[in-house]
């Protein structure tokens, strides 16, 4: 197994771990962090699969995608964190609670 596909597998692992955490934990900060871990997993997969084998230069397109993805992730995290603070201020705790809409 090449180093690149090992990284890709680690990326898939991070994605799954994050998915698990986002579902299991109640605290919003944990959920937001878990989503960031998932995002890092996707970025790792993108970057690691950019290699084209041998001595040829890696494919630049996935790098451009990851940079764009990071910008999106930063803004989404900022929004999520500020929303979390507002939720905590309004309800007294940083959790969504159990009351589901249905």
């Amino acid at each position: 197994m090449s180093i690149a596909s090992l990284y890709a597998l680690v990326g898939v692992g991070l994605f799954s771990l994050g998915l698990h955490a986002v579902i299991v934990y109640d605290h919003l900060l944990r959920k937001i962090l878990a989503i960031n871990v998932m995002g890092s997993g996707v970025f790792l997969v993108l970057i690691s699969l950019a290699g084209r084998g041998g001595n040829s230069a890696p494919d630049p397109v996935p790098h451009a995608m990851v940079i764009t993805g990071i910008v999106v992730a930063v803004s989404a995290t900022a929004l999520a964190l500020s929303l979390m603070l507002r939720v905590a201020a309004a309800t007294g705790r940083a959790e969504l609670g159990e009351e589901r809409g249905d």
Partner: protein
Amino acid sequence: MDAVVSAIPWGPVLILLPLAAGTTCFVFPSTAKTVGLVTVTLVPLAVAGLAWRLLAHGVYHHAVGGWGAPLGIDLQADGLSLLMLAMTAFVGFGVTLYATGYFKAGQSDRFWPLWLFLLAALNALFLSGDLFNLYVTLEMIGLAAVAMTALQGGRDALVGAMRYLLATLLGSLAYLMGVALLYHGYGTVDLGLLAARVTPSPVAWAALGLMSAGLVLKTALFPLHFWLPPAHASAPAPVSALLSALVVKASFYILLRLWLEIFSPMAGGVAGLLGLLGGAAVLWGSLQALRQVRVKLLVAYSTVAQIGYLFLAFPLAAGMGLTAWSAVVYLAFSHALAKAAMFLAAGNLVHFGGHDRVVDLDRVVQRLPLTAGAFALAGVSIMGLPPSGGFNGKWLLLQAAVAQGRWDIAGVMVVGGLMAAGYIFKVLGHTFTQANVPHEPSSVPARMEWAAMILACGAILLGFLAPPFLAVLAVGNPIAAGGLGS
């Protein structure tokens, strides 16, 4: 004339115009209403210009900055994109008209930039031709939509927005993982190139699963609809209208494109599963809508049910692709108009009586005849009674179901229609009667009533426009080209 109209780069105009307007609103809040109204008047004109060009010259391509795909970003539009842009422009106009009368000073400053950014993102999504660009626009839509949901600032709105944000981010990441796999497998994210290259393989299957799951979550298909009712019901009325009419359609549009262009050779069992979930959504959403005691939640659950109809087409497409997909586009368009009208009408009821409890509606028909009329006309389209856009869409879908002997799907559609009649007449019935607890109503601005009425009339008029609608859909038709059979 043709040379002039066709020479204007309508794609970038449709994206840059609302983007610039949104920035202007953010920097100069005092100009927001004027800028918003001017923008939503110009956007339909730009869509008309694009339509002119499309009908005269076929599919539209624009290489941004002169860099073509695969290196640069290509904007493209065919009949399906054009219809979605027209839907956005029309609903956007109605909702903007409504919003000029709805928001108070503080909220207004925040609403206008967010709405215009959302408009830019929606237009960009419908004009995108590659998977990664679709991801970016999808995230832009998600962030703007979540911020707008939280606009009212109450406890319900904040919790609803938070849940919505987590769901939408999760969906986007699953989609992005699929994009990464497809890029690895086939070396491109361009839809056209992928269509030629994708073959059934483990990579393509994994991508299909991840992307479908992510987009289904964002489209709120049963049982992944949990985030929709609280978010849509607790947002301000114009925002609810935009979320239900346009935002869920954006992720559905991507799913439809993927299905038509890339994954058509491997549909099979997944299509059956989506159809099953769609049927469950129709029944569950309608049942929940019947049980609601508040108008806005009732309308939100009706959205869950109506989204189910869109997914009923997936198992039918294998045999009668053209009819089933035309039905889906027709249903999506008419649902957008009717549901926007319903949420605006519900907003008028809240504004009028200070609450939206169904049983306490107090002689609304006499005092807000336009609002009650708009709700009823939109209801006609939602129930699928003729003449309306909803009827045409359901008729086409029913045709596809019956022709293939899928009586189960036809049955779900009929039962869903009856249940829709149930929850709509539940509201309409109470608008005629006097409430036990009479309350002091406050007056509703005329433009807010007319905005709902215009959108509801649009949903009805769509019922008479089947030939031009289907002709536009046939431009650069991915449905016929997708090899799904027709």
